[in-house]
């Protein structure tokens, strides 16, 4: 199987988010970066599928030159090759992101294109669907289990505590959610190989955005007062009183 995984570089936000002076970005001066969580699971899933069925894996990202770090993280986990669609740092909206990915992969042959269900930062929930439509491929999103059975993928989505099962003919686009697996840590040989690997780099045009960011706003936290019910097990009678007041026990 030939598998493509699309990932996004996102900051590792701490307890509080601070914005840049122009309010268009998160101030990342003191932050590290990571692969967005659902997509890290997509990387792991690609590795497991190829370990089980043979084939090759490619990781792709759209982002600034520094996003090479996330490609190398994926290579260190075991992905075979990396493609960087390099931007000047200005955000691409979901339509522009999908268009750039489609341009980059249109002439390549993949059996499976894996995405995260939504990026941790922008949370747009649509890039996978847009890419699939442009390539004329079937698409399922929010998947937490994939099996390959001959020419099709059997994909499972959690729904109301149970599961919906989809059978999708390959080639296909699947977006996954965290929980499909626990991603591995990169190995030392993997890191060494990743450090030296050549990345294929191109600079896509940024299509005019249909969803155009004006500015970011850190939501104001409503003032809150906490009632301390007590310390240690002696607080139990007071806790039960509160449970009764709230009507959760009779």
């Amino acid at each position: 199987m030939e598998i493509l995984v699309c990932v996004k570089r996102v900051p590792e936000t701490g307890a509080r988010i601070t914005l840049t002076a122009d309010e268009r970005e998160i101030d990342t001066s003191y932050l590290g970066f990571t692969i967005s969580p659902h997509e890290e699971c997509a990387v792991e899933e690609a590795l497991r599928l190829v370990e089980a069925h043979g084939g090759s894996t490619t990781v792709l990202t759209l982002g600034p030159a520094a996003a090479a770090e996330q490609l190398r993280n994926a290579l260190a986990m075991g992905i075979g090759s990396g493609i960087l669609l390099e931007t000047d740092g200005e955000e691409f909206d979901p339509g522009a992101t999908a268009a750039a990915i489609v341009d980059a992969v249109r002439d390549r042959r993949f059996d499976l294109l894996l995405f995260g269900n939504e990026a941790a930062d922008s949370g747009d929930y649509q890039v996978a669907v847009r890419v699939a439509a442009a390539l004329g491929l079937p698409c399922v999103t929010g998947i937490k289990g994939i099996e390959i059975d001959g020419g099709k993928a059997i994909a499972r989505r959690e729904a109301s505590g149970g599961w919906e099962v989809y059978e999708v003919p390959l080639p296909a686009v699947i977006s996954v959610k965290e929980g499909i697996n626990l991603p591995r840590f990169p190995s030392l040989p993997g890191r060494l190989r990743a450090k030296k690997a050549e990345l294929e780099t191109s600079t896509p045009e940024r299509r005019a955005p249909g969803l155009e960011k004006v500015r970011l706003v850190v939501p104001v936290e409503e003032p809150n007062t906490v009632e301390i019910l007590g310390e240690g097990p002696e607080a139990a009678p007071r806790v039960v009183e509160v449970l009764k007041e709230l009507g959760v026990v009779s």
Partner: protein
Amino acid sequence: MILVFVEPGDLSLEALTFARGLGPVEAVAFGSAPDGLGVSRVHVVALDEYAPGAWAQSLAGLVEALRPDAVVAAGSDRGQEVMAHLAVRLDEPMAANCIAATPGDPWLVTRQRWGGSLLEEARLHGTVRLLTVAPHGVVAEPAATAEPELVSVTPELRDGDLGVKVSRREEPAAGTVQLGDARVVVGGGRGVGSAEGFAALEELAALLGGAVGGSRVVTNLGWRPHSDQIGQTGARIAPDLYIACGVSGAIQHMVGCKGAKRILAINKDPQAPIVARADYAVIGDLTEILPAIVAELKR
């Protein structure tokens, strides 16, 4: 007119409340119309089984026939997926997880990023505006409840619209309380200490008729299955009471439980972020406190 794609459940009531602020509202449902929507007209599409392409194609047909200013859906799994397919069919942009919108040219929307710990103000261009509403980002308000007019819709599907559909379904074990629907949730974090430590949370949840959940740390450590995760990459809960045991209250966790009406934090650290954001707190060792609460409840 604002066309709202509705599913059974509270999230669609939130989406309807959001849409009423934008103009007159009509709803579209699949299979049958849920009760209590508070709209004058519901278009009922004759498709039962979920197939995102077919549902989006049905919506595209209604957009062509009814010419709404916007199509709004809940930011549920299906809401996001169907709206993304609709966006492709109409060749329009889509704004996910909105909490406010102002019609105009373009529309101005406020939407959640980072699961709601950051907001974005954006211009939404296009001729039909496509928006999903952030789960629990809007408080559902009841509307006039006259019986709606039901309009049957037979969709005109294209080849391939039914190519991806639910081929079978595995139901949850009978009697299990779903995290997203539970009126009481007992959640555990790193402070629970081990997978075995959750037995005390299970016992309390059982007494309260609630569900057990956990933080991302807990599911990443394998103490609980991922389906129990509360947070940005897990479930969004909206119980009457969330009892957070040994949960520090990282931003990614708090966005998952901000729908809770009340929070009771049990934590050994009075400085833990969750304590500052809770309504009630008990400070101390949860391995002593939880059994004491259970004993008191059984008395």
